[in-house]
């Protein structure tokens, strides 16, 4: 019994799950525009981050643009447009939610005043 449980937890910590990371705009902290020199620094930091978490970064995703909500018509709206809340997304693979959070948190420029990230597990088939 004990053996089986250990095996189960062993399995649990070694299988990578996928997590959806959504960048959310938060109130406050209207961030200043970075200067070109700062952008270069951000670019370098981003490269270092990608290298460090190469195994975790499944899909770098992208920023979200225009969208449209399609409903059956019987909804109670109004809905907040998704793109106002969510700036972009990416998918990371991790052994646990905590690890996924760690990857997202280390992403340069993602977590700062005015921006946060929501990390959600995607249940596989």
């Amino acid at each position, binding site marked *: 019994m004990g053996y089986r449980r250990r095996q189960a937890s062993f399995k649990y910590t070694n299988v990578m799950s996928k997590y959806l990371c959504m960048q959310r705009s938060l109130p406050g902290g209207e961030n200043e525009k970075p200067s070109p020199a700062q952008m270069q620094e951000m670019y370098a930091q981003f490269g270092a981050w990608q290298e460090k978490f190469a195994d975790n970064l499944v899909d*770098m995703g992208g920023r979200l643009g225009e969208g449209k909500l399609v409903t059956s018509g019987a909804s109670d709206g109004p809905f907040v447009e998704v793109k106002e809340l969510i700036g972009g997304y990416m998918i990371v693979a991790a052994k646990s939610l905590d690890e996924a959070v760690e990857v997202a948190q280390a992403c340069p420029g993602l977590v700062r005043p005015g921006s946060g990230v929501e990390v959600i597990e995607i249940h596989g088939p």
Partner: protein
Amino acid sequence: LTTSELVDHFFRHEYGRLVATLSRRVGVKHVEAIEDAVQGALMTALQSWTTAGLPDSPSAWLFRVANNRLLDELRQQNRRQGLLREHSQGPEADSDGDLGPFSEEELAQDLLEMLFVCCDEAIPVESQLALALKTLCGFDVREIGARLFITEANVYKRLTRARQRLRERPDLAENLEGKRYSSRLPSVHKILYLLFTEGYLSSHAETAIRRELCDEAIRLTSILAADRVGKNPETSALLALMHLHSARLLARQDGSGGLLLLEEQDRALWDQGEIQTGLQWLARSAEGDVFTRYHAEAAVAAEHCLAASFQETRWEKVVQSYSLLEQMAPSALHRLNRAVAVAEWQGPAAGLAVLDGLEPPTWLAGSYMWSAVLADLHKRCGNAEIAGNYHRIANEQAPTPAVKELLERRHKRSLVATA
């Protein structure tokens, strides 16, 4: 997928190139819209390149995005103002074509024109400098403030003045033909010189930041020196002096950021490559019969670079160059420098004699340099009391702890020398 390396200062230099190129295309009067478009394009690049990787030609990619953003903005402005006709043949006409990679010559030409624009006589010099740092070097307001030791508000004020003038002026090209182009060369030299000295003489603690300004000045001056109109003995002399000073930049500080006197510097740390480049430009600056203040300053720097040690410096040559410099650009500071050189050549009393009867202007009297030199010369002449007074004043006027420390050391040293 990981991001590939970009060359140093890629974003900053692309900023300068794009602002220059777009200014030439749509007119510098739109400089604010241009800068916004370029800033936006760089941000888009940062987001896109970090997720999708670098495009084949990052520069062309950036140009396309910045150009489109700018044209969108100008169209909107026109619509707002109901002035569609003004731009009906202008920027929109070539919006689709000619987006391939640019030749180096074209880019250099664009940068040069922007440099000449920055040196418009109608713009106050301090605004010219801020404008050049912003548009050509890609520094933002905060960074310019930190480099020029002025507040951000002051930087804004200077830039606003400059942009106001740019909005009023007709388009570039027609103004930069032939004579007008070369008649503006002296102001261009002056701005480049200023840019360099802001870095070289700065009391900024970080060598990297000072180095950056010196490198920017050398980059722009090199482009000027390669240009048909910009290539002249004065430009060569300016470039020579920049390289010869730059060679010694690192050696001017000790390991902990403290300043070192010329005689304390480890000459092995001087960059021989830079010295050679400087000497080559100095040779080229002699092709012709003009002798400018830059020639004189480069000659002084060359003497220092060529001397095997402080003691072996050919002080009579240094004195000669300072005399010429004084004749060409009369300034109490140049006289002060000559006095220092004369003191090394013929003794401290002779040095003091150079300053006899000179009433220093308030800016010099208020700077530590004047009092420090007098303290040193009087000390070496045995006038301990006068020296002590000047030393105290110099100490009070020292702008940074590093300078204060240097003065203290210098003072103690001359005590030993006279003992």
